[in-house]
């Protein structure tokens, strides 16, 4: 308070009100009608108490996936992320005092480049859905065409986000169907929809049904004139071919499985990679390798002339704040796992999900897997009871069930998407089986 008075005196003022004299009286407010501040102890107690009404996947086996996944996070990742230099720094505009953050982000880009098979990666988008929106607009920047094809088998949330990103540049979004037996893309239907105005085709591997689509590697040779955008789950790339190696021009994905908690759906991590020759058309912040005045290796944000703060209305994207810390998490996570760790994790996910698929398939009334195909860590099940009802029954037994698909794919109204990762023990599996048998 003494300091406040000294500072006001220095300014020749007697009260704080004088600092706000330039606000006309008719737009002044008289304080905020919010409760008075409380002590730190009370804040901790109160917020903890409010949140205690949440049921966590720590205490209850959770079989949800569909874009956000429950994976093990090695303790070292938490240690690294809690470093306050990473946590409390701003975007690394001042490269010389931000070399650590810049290098960590460059390493993130390097990891993603290796996984995706593409040389240019940005330092993050908000999530996979906004990365899809930005990918669609980038396709139009690449070839000036305005028809973007997406699978019918896609989360409705992604479709909705894409529609909003496509609205401004007037991109027509067209859906192609899936094979009702395999859940893979319907190549005939796709062929009939690709035309001279088509800017890009989006395909997911694994797709929304968890299916590893065996057509993915054929698309570039089928449609060489069209930009190929592949959506992926980065953990699956420990086992699956890099999309860049089968012709992808842009690869996007949700990076949350890489050491980022589920956090009720945010923050997430939008992965965005493209071919080197298209780098000047790509959205988002990128970190480049360079040298300092003494010729030593250094890193900095680069290609900023694409960005909003310089190019303003002509920028490739408006993105400014991104998900940098989540990119560091992904990088730290992959470093802890190492090559063998990621390979083993990818395979364990496939093996565990297959095991659960087969176990459910043996229960009378359940069709599992519903689609006859290879799956990563998710699979569709047709249930004898409405999925919404089944989930309520499972919840009574302390189990968080799968995702009813009807909101996403209306005709799959008796179907549920289940996910199994390394987090589920044999007991979790048998517990689910027993509960399913019990409730029907």
């Amino acid at each position, binding site marked *: 308070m003494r300091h406040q008075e000294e500072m006001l005196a220095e300014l020749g003022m007697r009260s704080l009100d004088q600092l706000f004299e330039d606000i006309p009286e008719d737009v002044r407010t008289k304080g905020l009608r919010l409760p008075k501040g409380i002590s730190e102890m009370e804040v901790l107690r109160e917020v903890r108490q409010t*949140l205690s009404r949440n049921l966590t996947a720590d205490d209850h086996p959770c079989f949800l996936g569909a874009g956000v996944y429950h994976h093990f996070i090695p303790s070292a990742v938490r240690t690294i992320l809690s470093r306050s230099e990473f*946590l409390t720094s701003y975007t690394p505009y001042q490269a010389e005092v931000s*070399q650590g953050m810049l290098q960590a982000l460059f390493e993130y880009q390097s990891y993603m480049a290796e996984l995706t098979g593409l040389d*240019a990666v940005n330092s993050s988008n908000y999530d996979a859905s906004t990365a899809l929106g930005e990918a669609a607009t980038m396709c139009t920047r690449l070839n000036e065409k305005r028809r973007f094809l997406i699978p019918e088998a896609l989360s409705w949330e992604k479709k909705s986000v894409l529609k909003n990103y496509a609205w401004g540049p007037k991109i027509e979004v067209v859906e192609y169907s899936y094979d009702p037996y395999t859940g893979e893309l319907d190549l005939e239907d796709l062929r009939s929809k690709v035309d001279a105005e088509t800017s890009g085709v989006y395909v997911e591997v694994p797709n929304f049904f968890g299916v590893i689509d065996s057509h993915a590697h054929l698309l570039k040779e089928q449609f060489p004139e069209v930009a190929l955008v592949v959506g992926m789950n980065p953990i699956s790339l420990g086992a699956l071919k890099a999309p860049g190696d089968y012709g992808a021009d842009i690869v996007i994905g949700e990076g949350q499985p890489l050491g980022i908690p*589920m956090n009720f759906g945010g923050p997430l991590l939008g992965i965005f990679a493209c071919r*080197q020759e298209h780098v000047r058309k790509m959205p988002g912040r990128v970190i480049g390798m360079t040298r300092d005045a003494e010729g030593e290796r250094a890193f900095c944000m680069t290609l900023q002339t694409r960005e909003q703060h310089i190019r303003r209305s002509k920028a490739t994207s408006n993105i400014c704040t*991104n998900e940098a810390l989540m990119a560091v998490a992904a990088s730290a996570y992959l470093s802890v796992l190492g090559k*063998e760790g990621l390979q083993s994790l990818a395979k364990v996910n496939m*093996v565990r999900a297959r095991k659960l698929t087969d176990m459910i398939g043996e229960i009378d009334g359940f069709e599992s897997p519903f689609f006859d195909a290879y799956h990563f860590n998710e699979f569709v099940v047709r249930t004898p009871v409405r999925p919404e009802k089944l989930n309520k029954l499972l919840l009574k037994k302390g189990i968080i069930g799968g995702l009813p698909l009807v909101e996403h794919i209306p005709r799959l109204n008796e179907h549920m998407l289940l996910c199994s990762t390394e987090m589920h023990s044999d007991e979790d599996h048998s517990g689910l089986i027993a509960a399913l048998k019990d409730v029907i």
Partner: protein
Amino acid sequence: MYRQARYERRLIMEKDGRTDFDLPFDDEGKGLEDYAPSELIRPELDLPSLPEREVVKHYINLSQMTFGIDNGMYPLGSCTMKFNPKYADVLASLSTVQNIHPYQDEETVQGALQLMYELERALCEISGMDAVTLQPAAGAHGEFTGMLLTKAYHAKSGEQRTEVVIPDSAHGTNPASAAMAGLEVIEIPSSNEGRVDVEALKAAVSEKTAAFMITNPNTLGIFESDIREIARIVHEAGALLYYDGANLNAVMGRTSPGIMDFDIVHFNLHKTFATPHGGGGPGAGPVGVRERLLPFLPVPRIVKKDGKFHLDYDQPDSIGKVRAFYGNFAVLVRAYSYILRKGGDGLQAASDRAVLNSNYLKHELKDVYPLPYGDLRKHEFVVSAKKLKEEKGIRAFDVAKRLLDFGYHAPTVYFPGLVEEALMIEPTETETKESLDEFAAVMRRIALEDDPQTVREAPHNAAVKRVDEVYAAKEAILSWRAYRKKMAKEKPETL
């Protein structure tokens, strides 16, 4: 004097060892061919493997070559780098935050929904808006959402409005967001007082104007005192008034976008509400609107009925979604906690102190670094290094780099463009008088430094010397993989 740690910048990809990571499952014996189409099996994976000890050392060393707000003052104008209180870290890392899935049954996430509902209500009160969506992931994402809402609103009334008017002092995200939404940007010049030129605005608006986007106070830290007149002009033209909330930290409790007659507002929770910026993100960019825009907000809306919270998707006029799920929840938890801790009185005190600190620091600096456009400022101010440049060949850029040597982050430089050699300084309320005095002393010392070369070659005490940004842009090496290809093909000098 400050000295940053300086480790060799060897990439983790250049290190080698053996991973400690393992899983409690046996490899089931079968090969990958039993689990994936053979054409899609990865033939090789070129990733490093290191013991945990080496991984932790690598990243801790990197962290020591990074400057955060916890290390020192961060007067980065327009970015509101205030201290991030630590109780928020504790709460954001609770299992009841981290280990909940967005598709869980509403019954099982009542705590999360209640917190979000109450945060929306608090943001309504602070902004004077009627409803808030927490979905946008960052400020620019909030702007984009606001532009989509603008389009949806005009489309519903059957109007063809295609232009957005923006002052030349606006944040770069404003025109970029409008353009991304397919709207044409009309830029208007500022007046001689550094404010919106009301006559220019009158001339720019028409039946084609969809919205006018401004921040108040503006990026010069000057309050737009004609705001009522501006609102009248915009509304009479049938357009909407958009508030860029990047500068909200200046005015909480003193005025509000609502009383100023704005229609749409975005908040930057990572600025005003003290959530950490994470070296670039995550942030959160909630958007508040007036009643008439409420039907267009993204789904789901969080509603309270019979004491329970629900996610309501039944909004026929909604623009749909701007990202997956409900927002950056872990960031929302931090902002909510901050608002509880501060309370209405504390938030206003924060704004008051931010404005006091800014005016005090400006007062201490303006004889050495001239201040264009009047005197009273809000939370930030822009001074010019033009005189230094003319007299000693020291540019704003050099001052910024030299500050790093003394353990300060630099101000924002060369923005807004209407001030030559601009240094945009925002001390925030969390700096003490002592730290402001020390900063002012260092700024004066830099201006008076005997050998201007020392300033022009700064920094000297950071992990590296001045970084070659031109070379970075020319080579565009964005990954280790790209670097190695380049090495193999062109053999450039080894980096």
